[in-house]
């Protein structure tokens, strides 16, 4: 949670500097942010490839729970498609935003790069909201929708920011499932967001 607040304070600082024109706008070159993005993607890939020990633990997961990330993805899409009918944006725009699964930093950056600042802002806010909704309602979700539900709600954040609340709500025996889910979702985000950004 503290980490999220620090990340958001960087966004807020940039927002204020931009709002009061205290930042040289000429520095906002397209190529420049693209190179930073490429470096980010390389580092994200590196950290994913660099944890074979984490992957080994996943062998202990029951086969049915292996499908949890798939249910998270399909369920999210289903909800997002319903609400997209009431919007001026296209279904694929909305699916790109929804496919951030709470990974607001990466998804908003990618969507801004490909779809522009307006949808990028929606992506940032929507995925922050998803994390907050999970943090607030995890105990309630367990009560009415079973112990897997807060893990699905947490999306790509279930091995970091929402991990503690999930363990507290669902129980310690769900820690491996939560980490597995977060890992798979983390990998899915860049693929699915890029995919939907490439559609009309």
């Amino acid at each position, binding site marked *: 949670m503290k980490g999220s607040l620090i990340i958001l304070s960087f966004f807020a600082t940039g927002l204020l500097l931009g709002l009061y024109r205290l930042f040289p706008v000429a520095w906002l070159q397209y190529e420049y942010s693209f190179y930073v993005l490429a470096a980010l993607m390389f580092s994200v890939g590196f950290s994913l490839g660099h944890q074979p020990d984490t992957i080994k633990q996943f062998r202990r997961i029951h086969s049915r729970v292996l499908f949890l990330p798939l249910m998270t993805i399909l369920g999210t899409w289903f909800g997002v498609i319903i609400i997209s009918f009431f919007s001026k944006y296209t279904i694929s725009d909305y699916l790109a935003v929804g496919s951030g699964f709470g990974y607001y930093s990466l998804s908003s950056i990618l969507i801004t790069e490909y779809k522009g600042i307006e949808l990028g802002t929606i992506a940032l806010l929507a995925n922050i909201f998803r994390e907050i909704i999970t943090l607030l309602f995890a105990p309630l979700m367990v009560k009415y929708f*079973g112990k897997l539900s807060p893990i699905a709600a947490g999306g790509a954040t279930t091995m970091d920011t929402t991990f503690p609340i999930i363990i507290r709500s669902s129980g310690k025996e769900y820690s491996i499932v939560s980490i597995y889910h977060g890992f798979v979702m983390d990998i899915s985000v860049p693929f699915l967001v890029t995919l939907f950004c490439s559609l009309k």
Partner: protein
Amino acid sequence: MFVVLIFMFAGVITGYLFRKLKFTFVNKIILALIWLLLFLLGVEVGVNDHVVKQFANLGFEALLIAAFGTMGSVVGAWLLWKITIKFPSDKSE
């Protein structure tokens, strides 16, 4: 458009090749890059009068996407839970 994915793949392969070595600073690099990019995103939003004016609307739209997306995934998990609950499954940990 898919160029960023090529960078990620290159990262996965490099990370895997160097899996025997410790690279704890990678997560710090990721964090620093995210800080930088979100700072720049903030500036871009700030200088864009149209987005600033629309901010409340964009926020409302974002809230709807978040609420419906999260709810959908919760229902998905609930369906899986209904299937799994009959089996003494993931209690191994």
